[in-house]
C-alpha cells in the first residue's frame, strides 16, 4: 500500500514539475520576445496557470480530495466559491506579508501581488485540492504532528519548501551586482518556484526514506 501511494505521489509530482517546465518553454513559441527575466509577468502567470490546471486535474483524477458529505450541485458550487474566496484571501495575506517584509507599498504593487498569486498557487491551491476549503483541516495539517496521510506530509513539505525558497530568494536583492534577476520580484518568484520543485522532488524521497517511522492515525 505504501509503495503504491508513494509511486502515485511521485508520478503526480513529476507531472506537476513537468508542467512548470512546459510553462517556461511553451510561451517562447507563442509570445514574441519571451524571456523569463524580460517578460517576467507573462512567465509568472503562465506558471501559475499551468500549475493550477495540472494540480486540479491530477488531484481530481487521483481522487485525493476529501469525500464530500453532500453530493448536490449547490453544495459543490458553494464549495467552489469558497475555494475561490480562500484563494483570494490567501493572495491578499501573502501580499500583506510581502509588504511587511519591506516591499514598496504603492510602487510596483502589481509585481508584489503577482508574487503573492504565485505563492498562493504553490501553497494554498494545493491545500484546497487536497484538503478542500476546510480551515480546521488546514490547521490540523500545519500544526505539529498533524499529518494523517502521505498527502498531508507531502503538502507540508512542498508548502514549507516554497515559502523557504521565496524567503531565501530575497537575500540576493541587496547585492550590487546589477543582474537582471535581482529586479523585484524575480529572485523571489524564482526562489519560490525552485523551492516548490525541490519540495516536489523531496516529498516522495523523504516519505520513502522515513516510511518505517511514519505511522498515521486515522480519523
Amino acid at each position, binding site marked *: 500500500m505504501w509503495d503504491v501511494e508513494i509511486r502515485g505521489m511521485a508520478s503526480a509530482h513529476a507531472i506537476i514539475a513537468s508542467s512548470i517546465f512546459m510553462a517556461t518553454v511553451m510561451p517562447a513559441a507563442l509570445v514574441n520576445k519571451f524571456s523569463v527575466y524580460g517578460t517576467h509577468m507573462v512567465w509568472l502567470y503562465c506558471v501559475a496557470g499551468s500549475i493550477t490546471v495540472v494540480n486540479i486535474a491530477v488531484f481530481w483524477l487521483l481522487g485525493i480530495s476529501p469525500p464530500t458529505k453532500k453530493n448536490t450541485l449547490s453544495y459543490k458550487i458553494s464549495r467552489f466559491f469558497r475555494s475561490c474566496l480562500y484563494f483570494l484571501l490567501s493572495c491578499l495575506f501573502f501580499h500583506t506579508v510581502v509588504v511587511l*517584509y519591506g516591499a514598496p507599498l504603492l510602487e510596483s504593487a502589481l509585481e508584489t501581488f503577482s508574487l503573492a498569486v504565485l505563492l498562493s498557487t504553490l501553497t494554498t491551491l494545493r491545500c484546497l485540492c487536497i484538503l478542500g476549503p476546510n480551515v480546521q483541516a488546514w490547521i490540523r495539517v500545519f*500544526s*505539529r*504532528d498533524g499529518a494523517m496521510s502521505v498527502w498531508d506530509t507531502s503538502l507540508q513539505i512542498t508548502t514549507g519548501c516554497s515559502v523557504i525558497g521565496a524567503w531565501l530568494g530575497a537575500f540576493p536583492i*541587496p*547585492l550590487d*551586482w546589477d543582474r537582471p534577476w535581482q529586479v523585484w520580484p524575480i529572485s523571489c518568484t524564482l526562489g519560490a518556484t525552485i523551492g516548490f520543485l525541490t519540495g516536489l522532488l523531496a516529498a516522495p524521497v523523504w516519505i520513502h526514506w522515513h516510511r518505517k517511522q511514519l505511522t498515521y*492515525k486515522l480519523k
Partner: protein
Amino acid sequence: MKLSSSVFALLCLILEIVSIALFLRGFFPVPVKSSFSAKSKVTDIPAEPQTGNNAVNSSRAPALLFKRVVIVLIDALREDFVFSSDGRRFMPYTRHVVEKGSSHSFIAKARPPTVTMPRIKALTTGSIPGFIDVVMNLNSPVLLEDNLIWQAKSAGKRIIFYGDDTWVRLFPKHFMEQDGTTSFFVSDYTEVDNNVTRHLDSTLKRDDWDILILHYLGLDHIGHISGPHSSLIGPKLMEMDDIIKKIHASLISKESEGTLPNLLVVCGDHGMSETGSHGGSSEQEINTALVLISPAFRRKVGLERPAVVEQVDLAPTLALGLGLPISQNSVGRLIPAVFEELSMREQLRMLQINGHQLSQLLQDSNPVFHKEDGYEQFRVAEKAHGSWMKLYVDGNKSEVLSNMGKKVRKQYLDALKAMSSALSKQMGKYDLYSMIIAMTFILQVLFLLLLAMPEALSRDAVVDVPLASSLLSLPFYLLCLFGSALHVLVCTSAGGPCYLCSLPWVLVFSVILLSSAFTCALVGMAARRLPTSNKTPTKSSGWALSELDALLLTGTVFHTLSLGSSSFIEEEHQTWYFLLNTLCLAVFQDVCRRYFREQRQRGEEEDEGPLLPSASDAGLSFSPAMELGVSAGSEKWLALGTPLLTLTCCRLLRALNQTGVQWAHLPDFGHWLNSGDHKVFLSVLAAVSLLLILVLVQRHCSLVSKIALALGLLGVYSYRAAVGNVLFPWPHSSRQVSKGTVEARFVYVFVLGILFTGVKDLLRSQVMSSAVDSGRLKSRGLWEVYSGVVLLVALLFRAHNLPTLACCLLVQTIMAQFIWKKLHYDAAQTTIMHYWFGQAFFYFQGNSNNIGTVDISVGFVGLESYVEAPAIILTALSTYAGPLLWACHLLCYLSSQTDRVVNGLGHGSYCFALLRSIPAVFYVVLVTALRYHLFIWSVFSPKLLYEAMHTLITTVVCLFFTFMDQDRSTRP
C-alpha cells in the same frame, strides 16, 4: 576556577574589547604628521647657506621654472599602457614624445590603498594617507592638510579643474572654474570623458589660467567592466592620446621667446589588476605611468627604460617647479631629472629646500630622529653645500667647483632618499604582528565562550575554567617559552612598525603568560568536553530544536556570514529587518499553535508519530493547567495581535528613515516631516509620541518618578520647540531660534533625579530583610533607571525619531506582556530576540554602517560649547540607543522574572556576550583577510569601528548584568 555565567561573560567581553583595541591599533597605523597645524609658508624655507649677507639672496622662494602646468590625470593608467608595445599601438603621439621629444618618463609607484581618493591626496599632499585618515575625514571630505592646490591658490595661481568630482569635494572653492563628473555609473565610459573634453578647446584658447587639471575616468570604468585586455581599451587610449596631442600642440603654440616654458604632466592615479579592478597591492595596480613634457627638458635621442619613482615624488617636484613651498607632510623627494638643466647652484638650492622640509617632518614624527642615517647625511650635505657656496661666491669657476658640486648633489640625493624611505616606512603599512596577536586572542575568547555553553546555560549557570591546573602544567611553560622566543624573533627581524614591540617588556610578558594560560585552559576544557559527548549520544539526540530555535540559530549564522560581502554590510539594515520580520512571523505561528491547539485539547498525545524533527516544544510542555483557566478570550486575541502589531510598527519605522547606500536616496517619511511645510504634523507626532512614552514607561515607577518623568518629557518638547524643530502650542513671544540650553538642562536635572531615585531604590533593596519586599524594590529601582535612560534618549533623539522611541517601548511592553511571559520562552531565547530587536532598532533610528550617519549634533545638546567627554558620551548614547534600550529592557525583564526563570540574568548576559562575539570575531578575521580589498576603507573599516564600538557598549551592559546578578548570588 569557578565563575558564574555573568562574570564569565563579562571577563570574556573585556578581554575581547582589549584585543579589538590592539587590533585597531595595528590596523590603523598612526599617520606621520607634523605637529604644526599651520601650513608651510614661504618664510619657512631656509636661507641658502653661507651667502654672507642677506642682500645677495633676498628672495627665499625658489625661482619659478614653469609658466603653466597642465595635469592630465588618467584614472587607472597602468604603466604598460604607455611604455609597452600596447603604448606604441594605441598612444603613438605620446610614445613619440616619450622616445624622441623633450620629456621625462617614469614609472610612478602608488601605495595601497590604490583607490582614487587616497591617491589624489597622495598626489597633492605628497603624504601617504593611512586608512585612519580616510575614516577620520569621512565627515569633512575637504582636504585640510597642507597641499599643493592650496599652496598654489594662496600664491595667486588660477586653477581650472575638469573631471572626477572627488577633486571638487576635496578642494572646494580652490578652483577658478570647475566641472565635476560623478563616477557613480561605472558602466558609462564615454560620457564621463566627453564631459571633460568638451571644455578643453575653449580653455586652451584662453590665457587667464596657470594650472589646468583634467581627470579622465573612462579608462578606469572600462577596466571595471571588462578588464585591461578588453577591446575597449585601445580606442580609449587613442582618445587620450589625441587629447594629449591637442594640449601639447596648444602649449607649444603659446610659447614664445623669453617666457618661461610650460609643463604637461600625464599621470595615472593607480593601476589596474589583471581582472580590471584596483585597490590592492599587486604590481599592475601600483605601477602607474608618469610622463613630464616640457621644452625645458633635453630632447631624448632614443627609448630609455623609464626610471622608477614614488608617486608622492610628484608633489615636491611640482611645488619646486612652480616656486611654491613644499607641503608640510610630504614624504616625497624631488625628481632630479626634472631639474638637471638648471645651474648647479639652483639644483643644490632645490635639494636643500626639499631636504630641510623632510628633516623637519622627521624631527616631528620620529623621537629618535638623530639615529636616522638620512638625517645625519643631510646635516653633512648641508655643511658641504655651505662650503661649496663659499667657493662659488668667491667667484671660483674651476673644475674643482663643479666636481665638488656634483659630490654635494650626490650627498643631498642620498640623504633625501634615506629620509624619504624612513618616513614612508612609518605609514601605509599594517602592523600585522599586533593584528595577528589580537586575532589569536579574540579567537581564543570565542572558543572559550562556545566551549562553556553547556555549563553556562545550565541551571547553576556556573562555568568552571581550569585556569589553576593549567598554570601548573608543562605545556603552559613550554608555550610561554615559545611565545617569548617568537616575540623576540619577530621584534628583532620586523622591518615595519610594530606596536607590540614598542611596549615595555613586562607588559608583553604578562600578555604572553595570559595567552599561554588561556590556550592551556581552552585545551583542558575541550578535553573535558570530549568524552562526555562521546559517552552520551542518546542525550544529544534528545536535544531537539523547535522551529524558533532553528530560526534564531540560522539567523545568527546568516547574518555573520553576510558580513563577508560589502553590499550586505552597506545594506545590513535589510538583513536585520528581514530577520526580525521572520522572527515575528515565527512567534505568531507559535502563538497560533498554542492557542488553537489548546482549544482542540490535543496536548496529551504528544509522543505519537513525530513528523517534524522537533519532538517536544518547550513552551507547550511547560504550560500548566492553571494558566489555562486564567487565559480569557480577550487575552488570546491580544496575544495573537501582538506579533502583527509589531510587524506593522516595524514596517512603519522602516519607512521613517531610509538608510544604507543603494536605496538611501529614496524619499522617506523622516524627510517629509522635516521639510518645513509639515511642521504641524511633526509637532503633533512628537507630542503624541512623548505622551505614549509617558504612558508606557510610568507603570512601574514610583509616584515621584512619574511626576519627574512627565515634567521631563514636557521639557523635551519645549527643548525641541526652542530649537525650532516643532511648533509651540502656546503663543510664543520671541521668534528667534535659541540653542535651547536652558530647556535641555532642565531635562538633564530630571534625568539625574530619576536615575538617582532608581539607584537609591536598588541600594535600599540590598539592606531590606524580607526577600519579597527587596525583590519588588529592586525591580522598581531597575525600572526607574530604565525610565531615566528613556528620558535621556527622548531628549537626544531628533523630533522625527521620537516615534521610533515610542514604538520601541510599545513593542517591548506588549511583547513582554503577551508573548515572552505567556509563551514561556527561556532566557536564552528572550535574549536573542532582544538582541535582534536592538539591532533592528539601531537601523530604524537612521543609522548605517557608514560613519557619515552618526549624528554629531547631539553632542551639543544642553552645552554652550563643545566639551569633548560629554559630547562623545552623548553621541555614543544616542547612536546606540536602540541596542542599549533593548538591553536595559532585557535586564529589567529578566530580573522581574527570577521566580520563573532560574538564573535568567546569568544566561542572558552569557548569550549577549556570545551573540556579540560571534560577528565581531568573524569580522576581525575577515578584515585581516581582506585588507587589500577595494572597499577596505570605504566599507569594511567603518564597519570595523562600528563593531568595536558595539562591543564596547555590550561590555558596559554586561557589567550592569553582572552587578544585578551578583547581588542575587550574595543574597541567600
